């Protein structure tokens, strides 16, 4: 019953967004049902559609988890974007610098680089907040700019192949490549960049769940998020929790680099992130800051992203911008939850338990 209630609201938000989007498509002059059929049909077609959809979902699961861990500690991490850039660069740097090492050594090193890179970039605003009380929202936003500029600088002046007109690093060593799932799944072509990082994302979701709800550390982190004064009273160091939460959050965001660098392009490509860090906020919000919810909403956002491409190609008027409209509308509806509690409350669906 509790689970149903948790699911109901995001579901209403999504359905409402599709209705609004449908009306818009109608006004533009296309058939909404046909458009949605195209969108979902292509995104969920086997193997190419599903392969790409899961590939798109991978970074969103990581960033969604990143935002939710911070949120559970009462922090808003707007900096997943910067954290994943630093991490992707760090992992690429290891992959380039130690290119000749054996995969048994290089892969773990590259993983650690991504996790530590993101973690350090996430820890900075955590430490600033714990030490000086400066607000993590401001600091994470600022660190996004810093990260992007810093990484661009290194690529442009130090790690680009000489003469390459594209802003990208030289390739990483073979030993750092993460296998594509096509290798293991019959029927899934290997040109689809869906790789083991997707499995890693699912494992991380499970680990995040166990960490938050089954360990003493998670208890301390969530206590701090829900009531820092009471946490302090219970002998929990609020400052420590803030730093821990931001570090874990940054590490999770950083694992996007594994998917991107080690599993997809095999090099660092400047500006690769399609706002994964920011979409992660929406993913966490729609997923109700729960790992299962994060996976489901990451998949939904990935479907929209993948399905937007044929919509662009095969409808008369609608462009793939409809995806942005849908995403935006979903976020609006989710954010308007308080408003919805009013009219829907009388059906007894969303009523807060009152004793």
């Amino acid at each position, binding site marked *: 019953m509790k689970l149903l209630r948790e699911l109901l609201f995001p579901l209403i938000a999504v359905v409402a967004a599709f209705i609004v989007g449908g009306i818009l498509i109608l006004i533009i002059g296309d058939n909404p049902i046909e458009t949605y059929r195209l969108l979902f049909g292509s995104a969920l077609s086997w193997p190419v559609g599903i392969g790409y959809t899961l590939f798109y979902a991978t970074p969103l699961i990581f960033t969604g988890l990143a935002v939710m861990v911070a949120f559970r500690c009462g922090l808003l991490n707007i900096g997943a974007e910067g954290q994943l850039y630093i991490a992707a660069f760090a992992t690429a740097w290891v992959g380039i610098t130690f290119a000749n090492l054996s995969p048994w050594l290089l892969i773990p090193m590259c993983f650690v680089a991504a996790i530590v890179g993101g973690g350090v970039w996430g820890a900075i605003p955590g430490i600033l907040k714990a030490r000086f009380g400066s607000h993590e929202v401001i600091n994470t936003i600022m660190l996004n700019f810093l990260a992007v500029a810093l990484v661009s600088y290194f690529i442009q002046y130090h790690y680009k192949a000489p003469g390459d007109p594209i802003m990208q690093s030289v390739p990483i060593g073979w030993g750092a490549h993460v296998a594509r799932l096509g290798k293991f799944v019959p029927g899934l072509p290997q040109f689809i960049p869906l790789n083991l990082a997707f499995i890693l994302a699912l494992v991380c979701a499970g680990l995040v769940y*166990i960490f938050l709800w*089954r*360990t*003493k*550390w998670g*208890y*301390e982190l*969530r*206590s701090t998020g*829900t*009531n820092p*004064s*009471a*946490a*302090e*009273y*219970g*002998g*929990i*160091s609020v400052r420590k929790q803030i730093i821990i939460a931001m570090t874990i959050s940054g590490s999770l965001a950083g694992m996007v680099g594994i998917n991107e660098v080690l599993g997809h392009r095999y090099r660092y490509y400047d500006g690769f992130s399609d706002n994964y860090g920011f979409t992660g906020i929406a993913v966490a919000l729609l997923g109700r800051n729960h790992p299962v919810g994060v996976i489901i909403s990451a998949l939904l956002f990935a479907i929209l992203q993948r399905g937007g491409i044929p919509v662009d190609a095969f409808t008369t008027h609608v462009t793939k911008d409809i995806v942005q409209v849908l995403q935006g509308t979903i976020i609006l509806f989710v954010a308007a939850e308080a408003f919805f509690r009013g009219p829907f409350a009388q059906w007894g669906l969303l*009523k807060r*338990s*009152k*004793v």
Partner: protein
Amino acid sequence: MIELRNITKRFGDVIANDQINIKVEPGTIHAIVGENGAGKSTAMRIAYGFYKADEGEILVEGQAREIATPHDAIALGIGMVHQHFMLVDTMTVAENIVLGAEPGNAVALDLAAASVEIRKLSEEFKLAVNPNAVIEHLSVGQQQRVELLKALYRHARLLILDEPTAVLTPQEVEEFFAILRRMREQGKTVVIITHKLAEVLAISDEVTVMRDGKVVGRVQTSETNAAELARMMVGREVLLRVEKPEANPGSAELSVQNLSIVSKGAKRVDDVSFEVRKGEILGIAGVEGNGQTELIEALAGLISPSQLSGKILFEDRDITKEGARLRRELGIAHIPEDRHRRGLLLEFDLAENAILGVHYRKPIVSYAGVLLDSMAIRQRANDIIQGFDVRPANPDLPARSLSGGNQQKLIIGREFKVEPKLLLVSQPTRGVDIGAIEFIHRKLVSLRDAGCAVLLVSAELEEVTSLSDRLLIIHEGRIAGEVDPKVATIEEIGLLMTRGH
């Protein structure tokens, strides 16, 4: 003046008001008493148009009226002052009072005229409120008078006051009652919701008693007494005085030496020294805001050592610089004064709340010293729930859904469960039902008799004097004196509380 007839109000399956009848005579002060959750606030919110009754009717001055919104209530001359004030802190008294009924035309706000009117009202009822003062600079008592003015400015003839004395010091309560009496003289009608029996007897003309959503009696104040009212409220005989055997104190458990605390730029506690011995309850009486909060928080390890000077010794060990976790491990438990801010994780369920402070220790943590053992957690939660009669007895409910008294019992149970050597208790029965108060008092005495040292801070003079074995009086952060609570009079203690040495 107002009459509720056969009013019934349900929230889901819960019947908050069951066929209740309340009649308030004009020009009187009418008290509505009952335990938390008895339905008194619900009834008054129906009268003020916050809730709509499922059945029954409301008569105002003899005529049946539809009160669908607070707006309707105001139009009928009904005003309400809530327990939590609804004032804008950064605005002036006059601006707050006119808010929602701004004088002047569509463009210009005529505050000058309003100020004159407010001043007139303030003088009429001797409220001593300056219309130009900014709310955040006013004391809680003054803010409450602004709330009164807000209602009077809207021509309220009936004032409904929800737990008005909960936030006031004893002195402010006296002043406040004087104001209420003046209002009655001027022909206003007052309804006061409370559960403090002494105040009911002091101020009201008539009392309506509620229990479990029903009206169980209506009596003239002059013809009743505290014991009778308590019996009606709880439904059984209630012991209002604590009966306790003589204390048998042992050696000093806690020793505070020349402790001073600086907080928010001021010295809150100034050179305080005392000892709490095993097997005794040391009470600290004082008007709220005289350093008690800071003192207890400092002893619990919740104030940064950099703000402290002096020494705190626990079993001869200097713990001045130790944090809250180590102090808990040494055997210091703490029942905080503000259970919502400090004591509970309101969004968490009872089981999760039951382990706060021991969440990282065995047996709560098993498997490699990291994973929480959900069986052990439930076990502990159920022990506390049963041992301290927490209702509803369901460890999966969020703490938020419990009544104040049950939340308090949960906290007390949790802190008792660690078998502390020293218990710091602040306002243990604030906002708690009479029945639960009796229970909490008995538990505190039994803990003392088991050899625990108890340091008790309470704003309820009656409570500290009857529970304590020794009593210190604190005034402006200093110990103003020590008295023997068995022989000291309220006047004697009150004098020390207000004047210091």
